[in-house]
């Protein structure tokens, strides 16, 4: 498990990172590698801790997650 979520744009990825940072969750914005086919030309967030909680925070703030690879 990579604990990575794929987001639709740089803006959304950076906003997601900042929202998580405010809750004490560390993450990093990366360009998506493309291994998931349609993942090319989007951005991902590598989440280093409290992954499931992070997902809930992003959903609660209307940040659309277009793909994920991590703990459930």
């Amino acid at each position: 498990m990579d604990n990575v979520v794929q987001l639709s744009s740089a803006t959304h990825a950076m906003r997601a990172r900042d929202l998580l940072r405010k809750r004490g969750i560390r993450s990093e914005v990366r360009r998506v590698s493309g291994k998931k086919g349609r993942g090319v030309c989007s951005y991902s967030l590598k989440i280093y801790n409290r992954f499931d909680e992070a997902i809930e925070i992003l959903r609660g703030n209307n940040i659309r997650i277009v793909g994920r690879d991590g703990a459930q």
Partner: protein
Amino acid sequence: MIYLDNGATTSPKPGNVVNSVCALTRNLSANPGRGGHRLAMKAAELVYNARTTVSDFFSVDDPSRVVFTLNCTTALNIVIKGVLKKGDHVIISGYEHNAVLRPVEKLKERGVTYSVAEVVEGDDDKTLDNFRNCIKQNTRLVVCTHASNVFGIKLPVGRICALCHQYGILTCVDAAQSAGLLPIDLKNSSIDYLCIAGHKGLYGPMGTGALIINCDVIPDSFVEGGTGSNSYDYNQPEILPDRFESGTPNFTGIVGLMKGIEFVKSRGIENIYRKELSLVQNAYERLGSMKNVILYTGYPEFGSYVPVLSFNLADKDSESVGELLSRRFGIAVRAGLHCAPLAHKSKNTLDIGTVRVVPSAFSTQNDINALVSAIFKIK
């Protein structure tokens, strides 16, 4: 040159803006939001920081609601052409710039109609009544300037927008002349779309502006193309801000705009406004005491005007006065219609235009003294 044409664009720009633009052009000429390499990611980060700076400045929670544009005109066109459909009616104020008037006139070809609500200087109740009287069953949008770019008269946009929401009408405010001078809190207002110029009272470089979308009605896309996101999809992305930001952005300008806002915050909006309006008040009093000078507004009181002063000399056309000020006295002002024929119609200056004086945070009393002295000699 004494520069009093800050209504067109502020000059000089603050040192932090100039330094930022120069340094980025030299050291970070990478395309933001496209590649994944270190420079592109750094550029994307800076654009995001600029977006959050703008959203914080206007009290918007979600920075993706800030769409960077080339200027305020583009932002207004996105709203007007992206919201209105055949059969819709739109209301504009009698002080609108051509950035509003020409798009709504153009939309007549699409079956959109418009009405002009007369602004009554010094009587906000009457102005509000005029807007109310223009409302029709099919009124979809009201577009209203925050302050006249010709006469400095401030419109009661808060009340106008609140009235529109009572009728379920969307609201769009042109803050080209007010952003950076008057506080705008979108969280506590009924403004649905705020259009700003980045290069005037926010002290960014030319070629910057923004649309801030403060409602759930998202206009149709205006320009389609590459966004660096969802590239497999043939259709323009729905997400903000990508929906409206196709093509390579004005990266250095956008970061320069962020620096301009930092400059405004460091000086304080209220301080800048009071300083500039005091200069305009001084010019108003002294020019008003000259026999041949014609002024067009009441005394520019704090809270009712932005620092914009229009005047004419009785026996001279405005362009001649502007030319003389430049050539003989080294003073830069704007003369003519200022792209706002509706405003001139309301003051009967459509045929002659006006000479417009607009100070900035860098203007001084000496600048006004030089202007008054020059006008005394010209008249």
